[in-house]
């Protein structure tokens, strides 16, 4: 990665391209003359033609209609701000969008932008990651053109002690977006694994920069396998994984999914800021695969078995063990016992 940080408008969304698309959209598929475009944008007709060529290169289909002008036929399923912001209904999350074609990791980029002062709600999206990562240095397969890799900058006015609550925010929002955009029925395993038909379809990595009593910022990293095909998965996966397209049996629009995700995040985060953790916890419990189930948790401290009674104030798993004691589990891999 270069040392230069991208400015939100510098990448993939040249202001003029964005204006051209706006004009076409306002015509709803109608023809716009080259002269009108040239006048509205205050550039020459040759420049208009060049910008249209660029847009076609990005996957847009803009047709020249002889002696009349241009017409927007179709738009590509790309996650640039120009596309993503169309019809996006958010108050906070996604009001600032950064898109890069490829980066090492969106979390790394978002972390650097946050250190540099990026506002709360800034969303960093990459079409591909060359060093996509998970917990503890694990790799996250991130091919171009098929999935979503995004990181969200939050600056919640809470104590660092309570920050783990926000792990449940991205899990709930990812599950809701899968349901809304792909029509699938996801469940959440504690704390934030999102499963469809038992397969892992999303990975989340959250990072925090904080002092003892104050959070500087949080970065919520979310990777979702949307249209990835079977032959694109690495052979040595820790968990059985899949994509929304494989499970749904058809392609899923990355744009629709991402808009749904940002809107869900926005709604739950606004509610979290206004009312605290309780509604988020309820939303998580409502989608949890483990609530009321007998589970086994294996972790650094050994194995433990019991029945899940809920999650506590910071999201620790509450487990009723065989001898009747209520254990509070902070870390570990959960397996549901049949």
């Amino acid at each position: 990665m270069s040392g230069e940080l991208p400015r939100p408008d510098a990448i993939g969304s040249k202001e003029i391209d964005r204006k051209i698309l706006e004009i076409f959209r306002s015509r709803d598929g109608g023809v716009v003359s080259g002269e009108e475009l040239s006048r509205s944008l205050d550039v020459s007709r040759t420049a208009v033609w060049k910008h249209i060529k660029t847009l076609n290169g990005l996957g847009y289909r803009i047709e020249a209609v002889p002696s009349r002008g241009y017409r927007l036929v179709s738009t590509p399923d790309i996650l640039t701000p120009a596309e993503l912001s169309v019809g996006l209904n958010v108050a906070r999350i996604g009001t600032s969008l950064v898109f890069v074609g490829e980066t090492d990791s969106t979390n790394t980029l978002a972390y650097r932008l946050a250190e540099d002062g990026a506002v709360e709600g800034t969303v960093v999206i990459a079409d591909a990651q060359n060093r996509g990562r998970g917990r503890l240095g694990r790799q996250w397969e991130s091919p171009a053109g098929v999935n979503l890799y995004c990181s969200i900058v939050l600056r919640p006015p809470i104590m660092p002690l309570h920050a783990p609550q926000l792990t449940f925010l991205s899990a709930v929002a990812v599950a809701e977006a899968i349901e809304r955009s792909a029509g699938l029925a996801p469940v959440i395993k504690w704390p934030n694994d999102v499963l469809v038909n038992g397969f892992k379809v999303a990975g989340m990595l959250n990072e925090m920069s904080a002092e003892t009593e104050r959070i500087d910022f949080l970065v919520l990293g979310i990777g979702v396998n949307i249209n990835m095909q079977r032959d694109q998965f690495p052979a040595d996966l820790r968990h059985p994984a899949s994509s929304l397209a494989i499970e749904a049996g058809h392609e899923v629009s990355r744009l629709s999914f991402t808009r749904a995700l940002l809107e869900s995040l926005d709604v739950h985060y606004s509610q979290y800021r206004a009312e605290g953790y309780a509604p988020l916890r309820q939303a998580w419990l409502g989608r949890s695969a483990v609530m009321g189930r007998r589970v086994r948790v294996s972790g650094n401290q050994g194995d433990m078995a019991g029945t899940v009674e809920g999650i506590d104030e910071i999201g620790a798993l509450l487990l009723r063990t065989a001898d009747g004691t209520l254990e509070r589990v902070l870390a570990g891999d959960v397996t549901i016992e049949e």
Partner: protein
Amino acid sequence: MDIKDLKSLIKMVTETDITEFELEGAEEKIRIKRGCTAPMVQYQAPQPMVAMQPAMVQAAAPAASAAPVEAVAPAAAKAKGNEITSPIVGTFYRAPAPDAAPYVEVGQIVEKGQVLCIVEAMKLMNEIEAEYRCKIVEICKENAQPVEFGEALFIVEPL
């Protein structure tokens, strides 16, 4: 041996791969033994020493929770310095990945803003950074161990 010499001796030993070091003279016997996380110092003087002796051990002998200091000198050694505590309840990680080198070792001098460890809670990774230039005197927790809110992770000596 004065405190300065003892300090340099410990520094010298911790910078090598030596795990145990013993020096016996006419008047004193010094034994330095390194555990997995922190060096251990045993200081034995044949005769009662002057008043500075406990201070000597205090300054030089970090008390590792994993390897208790067998201080023969009066008053068990308690590490001197500032505590860096955990802002969250979670799991302590000394390295970014299981096969990676630890962020810091005992005796190392770290710069302001340098990452010391990760504390993970509910898949939220919190990189703990040095808030000032300092020397790591003690690493209070072992890798992958649970930590409580406010619990000491490191003892450091501000520089």
